[in-house]
C-alpha cells in the first residue's frame, strides 16, 4: 500500500504539513470504515479526497472534525499530536467544516445562525458578514431568515460562518452537489482565493471533472483504505474512476425510446400550496408521461421536487373537485391516496430510503410486503409468508443486493444496497408508471450504474418512468426527455438533442420564464 509515502513531490511538500493523519482506523462493530489511513495536508493547497459513497470519506472527515473518535492512529496538527474530542476543539485548532447537509437553523436569521459559532452578537456581525461577502464573492443578506434562502445561499452562509472563525483548514463535503452549474465557478473562485491566502482546503467529492479543474492533489479512497495519491490535473476521468471504483466506469447502454401514444400519466394545470410553510408552491404544472419513455425532472434541490413527487405519489391529495388534474391511464385520481393510486398501476421510490422507502427496523421480507401485499401475498387476511419470502429472495437476487439474506433488517444494509432493494421491489410490482426520486443519492458508482440500467430496461418494457434527480449527469444518461423545475414551475420539455448543459443550466435558474426570475442566477 502506497500510503503515507508521498508519491507526488511538488514544492508545497517541502514545508511542514498542516495536518498529518497517521494510520487512522475506525471500526463500527465488525465493519471497518477506515483502515490505516495516512494523509498529509499542506498550507495553501486544495486537496481532494476522492471516493465512492461508502468509501469512508465522511468517516475520515468526521474524525478530523471531532465528530467521531478514531479507533486507533494519530492526528498531528502543525507538528503536534492532538486529540480532537469535539467540533469545538477542532474549531479552536483552526479546522472548519462546511457540511453537505447544512447545519443551519431554519427559524433563525443568517446573522443569528453565524453568531452561534462566534463570540460576537448577531447585531455586531451583520457588517462583517457583508464585508466577507464582498471580499470572497459570497453576497447574502444577514437579516434574512434561513428558511427563505435557496440552497446555494445557505451554502454561502455556511462558508461565511466557517471563514469568520479564521480557519487554517476548511473541509468541504460535496459542496457542489447542491449548486446549479452556474454556481460552481464562483464557488471555485472563492476557494482559490482562500487557498492563495494560505488556507488549506480538503475537498471531498466524487465528481471527477471538478477535482481535475480545482485540486492540486487528490487522495483516492476505496473501501475504507487509501488506494492512491495523484496529481489530478495529470489524470483523466477514466484513470481516476478506475482507481476510485477498482474497475472501468460502467456506462449504461440504450436504444432510442419508442414511446406509446396514450399518456400513462398526466398532470394538467396543477397549482398546489404545500401544508409545510417552508415548502415550495407548485405553480401551473403541466406534464405528460407516455409509456416507454423516461422523463427526467432536473433542477436545483429545493425548487419543488419534493412537493412534485409527493403530489404524484398520492402522499399529498387534491380536493375531489380537482381530481381531473391528475390522470393515471386516463383515470382521474387527484383525490386518491397513495394506496389507491398504486392500485391503478403507479409505483413510487421516494428519496428517503429509511423511513419512507423502507422501514429500517423491519426485515426485507416485511419491507417487501409493504408495497407488494396486494400481489397475491395476502390470502383471506393472512400473509402468505412463503410467497413473500420467495419474492424478497428474487428481488435480492435480481438486483444483486448485498445483505445477510431476506431476514436481514433494512437498516443493516448500506445505502446503495437498500436503494437497489427498494427499486427492485417496485419493479416487481410490474407498474405502468414508476416515479423515482433521486434514484442514486448516496449510492456508489457501480450500484448507481446498475440501477440506471434497470430503469432503462424497464422503459424498453413499456413502462412510463419519471425520474427526479439533482444530478444532471444521471439525467443525461437515462432520460429521453427533460423538464426543469424552478421555484415550483416546470420548464417546457427538452429532447435529448436539445438538452445541453447550457440550456438546462439556464433553465435551472429560471431561464424558461418570460421574465427571468430575479437574482437566482447570480445568487446561486
Amino acid at each position, binding site marked *: 500500500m502506497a500510503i503515507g509515502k508521498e508519491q507526488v513531490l511538488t514544492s508545497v511538500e517541502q514545508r511542514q504539513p498542516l495536518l498529518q493523519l497517521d494510520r487512522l482506523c475506525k471500526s463500527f462493530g465488525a465493519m471497518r470504515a477506515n483502515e490505516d489511513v495516512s494523509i498529509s495536508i499542506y498550507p495553501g493547497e486544495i486537496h481532494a479526497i476522492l471516493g465512492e459513497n461508502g468509501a469512508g470519506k465522511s468517516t475520515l472527515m468526521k474524525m478530523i472534525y471531532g*465528530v467521531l473518535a478514531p479507533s486507533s492512529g494519530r492526528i498531528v496538527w502543525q507538528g503536534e499530536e492532538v486529540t480532537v474530542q469535539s467540533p469545538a476543539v477542532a474549531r479552536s485548532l483552526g479546522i472548519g467544516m462546511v457540511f453537505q447537509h447544512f*447545519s443551519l437553523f431554519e*427559524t*433563525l436569521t443568517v446573522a443569528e445562525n453565524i*453568531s*452561534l*459559532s462566534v463570540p460576537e452578537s448577531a447585531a455586531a456581525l451583520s457588517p462583517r458578514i457583508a464585508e466577507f461577502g464582498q471580499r470572497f464573492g459570497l453576497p447574502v443578506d444577514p437579516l434574512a431568515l434561513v428558511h427563505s434562502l435557496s440552497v446555494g445561499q445557505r451554502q454561502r452562509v455556511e462558508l461565511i460562518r466557517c471563514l469568520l472563525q479564521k480557519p487554517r483548514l476548511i473541509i468541504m463535503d460535496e459542496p457542489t452537489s447542491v449548486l446549479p452549474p452556474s454556481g460552481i465557478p464562483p464557488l471555485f473562485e472563492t476557494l482559490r482565493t482562500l487557498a492563495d491566502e494560505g488556507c488549506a482546503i480538503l475537498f471531498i467529492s466524487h465528481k471527477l471533472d471538478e477535482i481535475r479543474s480545482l485540486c492540486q492533489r487528490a487522495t483516492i479512497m476505496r473501501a475504507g483504505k487509501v488506494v492512491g495519491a495523484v496529481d489530478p490535473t495529470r489524470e483523466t476521468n477514466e484513470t481516476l474512476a478506475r482507481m476510485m471504483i477498482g474497475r472501468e466506469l460502467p456506462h449504461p447502454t440504450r436504444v432510442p425510446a419508442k414511446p406509446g401514444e396514450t399518456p400513462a400519466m398526466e398532470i394538467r394545470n396543477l397549482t398546489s400550496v404545500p*401544508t*409545510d410553510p417552508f415548502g415550495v408552491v407548485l405553480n401551473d404544472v403541466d406534464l405528460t408521461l407516455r409509456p416507454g419513455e423516461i422523463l427526467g425532472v432536473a433542477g436545483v434541490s429545493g425548487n419543488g421536487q419534493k412537493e412534485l413527487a409527493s403530489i404524484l405519489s398520492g402522499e399529498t391529495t387534491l380536493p375531489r373537485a380537482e381530481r381531473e388534474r391528475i390522470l393515471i391511464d386516463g383515470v382521474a385520481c387527484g383525490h386518491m391516496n397513495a394506496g389507491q393510486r398504486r392500485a391503478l398501476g403507479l409505483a413510487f421510490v421516494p428519496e428517503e430510503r429509511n423511513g419512507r422507502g423502507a422501514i429500517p427496523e423491519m426485515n426485507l421480507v416485511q419491507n417487501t410486503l409493504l408495497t407488494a401485499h396486494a400481489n397475491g401475498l395476502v390470502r383471506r387476511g393472512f400473509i402468505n409468508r412463503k410467497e413473500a419470502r420467495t419474492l424478497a429472495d428474487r428481488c435480492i437476487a435480481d438486483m444483486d443486493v448485498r445483505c445477510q439474506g431476506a431476514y436481514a433488517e433494512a437498516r443493516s444494509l448500506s445505502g446503495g444496497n437498500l436503494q437497489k432493494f427498494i427499486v427492485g421491489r417496485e419493479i416487481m410490482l410490474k407498474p405502468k408508471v414508476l416515479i423515482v426520486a433521486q434514484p442514486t443519492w448516496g449510492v456508489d458508482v457501480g450500484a448507481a450504474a446498475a440501477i440506471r440500467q434497470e430503469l432503462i430496461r424497464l422503459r424498453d418494457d413499456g413502462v412510463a418512468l419519471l425520474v427526479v434527480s439533482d444530478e444532471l449527469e444521471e439525467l443525461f444518461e437515462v432520460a429521453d426527455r427533460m423538464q426543469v423545475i424552478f421555484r415550483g414551475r416546470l420548464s417546457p420539455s427538452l429532447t435529448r438533442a436539445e438538452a445541453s448543459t447550457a440550456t438546462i443550466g439556464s433553465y435551472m435558474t429560471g431561464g424558461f420564464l418570460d421574465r427571468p426570475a430575479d437574482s437566482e442566477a447570480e445568487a446561486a
Partner: protein
Amino acid sequence: MAWFTFLISGTLLAATPLLIAALGEVIVEKSGVLNLSIEGMMSVGAVVAFIVVLYSGSHWLALVAGGMAALALSVIFAFVVLLALGNQVVSGLAVGLFGIGVAGLVGKPYENMTVAPMQRIDVPLLSDIPVLGPGLFHHPLPVYLAPLLAVLLWWMLKYSKVGLVLRAVGESPESANAVGYNVVGVRFLAIIFGGFLAGVAGAFICIASSTLWADGMIAGRGWIVIALVMFAMWRVERVIIGAYLFGAASIGELLVQSAGISVPSQLMTSIPYIVTIVAVSILSMDGKRVRLNAPVSLGRVYLGTH
C-alpha cells in the same frame, strides 16, 4: 361590585402559579424536551413548601425549598431522558406520577393542617382605588414578580445569546452539536430551570392561595400548564395572556355558583379543562403556525455522537 373585585383578585391569584410553571415549561420545551411531569413537580413543590412554612414560618424560604425539591425531581427526569435516552412522553408521565405519589406520602401527616397565608402587600395609593384597588393591588409579592419574570424571559429568548442557543438546540440538536454546543448540557439546565419554576408554582398554590395541604390539591393544574404552553405556541407573550385567561376561567366557576345559578358543580369544575381541549384543538389545526413556532426537535430523543 364585590364580585368584580373578587373576579380580578381571584384571577390574579389563580393565574400566577400557572404563569410561573408555564414559563418554566416554555424554556424546557424550547430546548426540545417535552416535560409532562409538571403535575408531579408542582405537587412535590407544594408539600415541601407547606412543611417548611409550618416549621420555619418563612414563606419565601418555603417557595425556594419547594422549587429546589421539584428541581431534584427534574434531575431524575433529566437523567432518564438525556442520558438513559428514555422516551420523553413515557418518562415524563412516570416521573410525574412518582412525584404525585411521593408528595402524597410525605404529606400524609400534614393532611388538612393549615398555615398562615403569605403576607399580602398593599401597593401604596393604588390599592386605595375603589373596586380595582383591592382586586389588583392587594396580593402577595409573587403575583407581581411572575409577570416581571415573564418579561425577562421573553427578552432573554428573543435577544440574548443564551436564548439563541436554547432555540438552536431545540430546533436542531444535531446542528447545534456540529457548531459546538453541548446539547445535553443545555437541555439539562433547561429541565432543572423548568423543574424549579414548577416547584415554586406548586408552592405558591399551597402557601399563598390555599394555605393548606391536601393530597391531590394541584388538581390537574400541571396539565393545564402543558396545554397552556402549546396554546401559546411557545411564545412568552401569549403564555402571559393564556395564563390570565385560564385563571379567569377557573375562577368563573366560583362566581357562577355564588350568583346562585344552578349548574352542576362538576360541569363548572371542568370548564378550564374544556377550554383547554377546545383551544388546543383549534390552534393545532393551523399546521403552519405550529411548524413556524414549535421547537422542531420537541419530544425527539437526541442520540448525540455515539
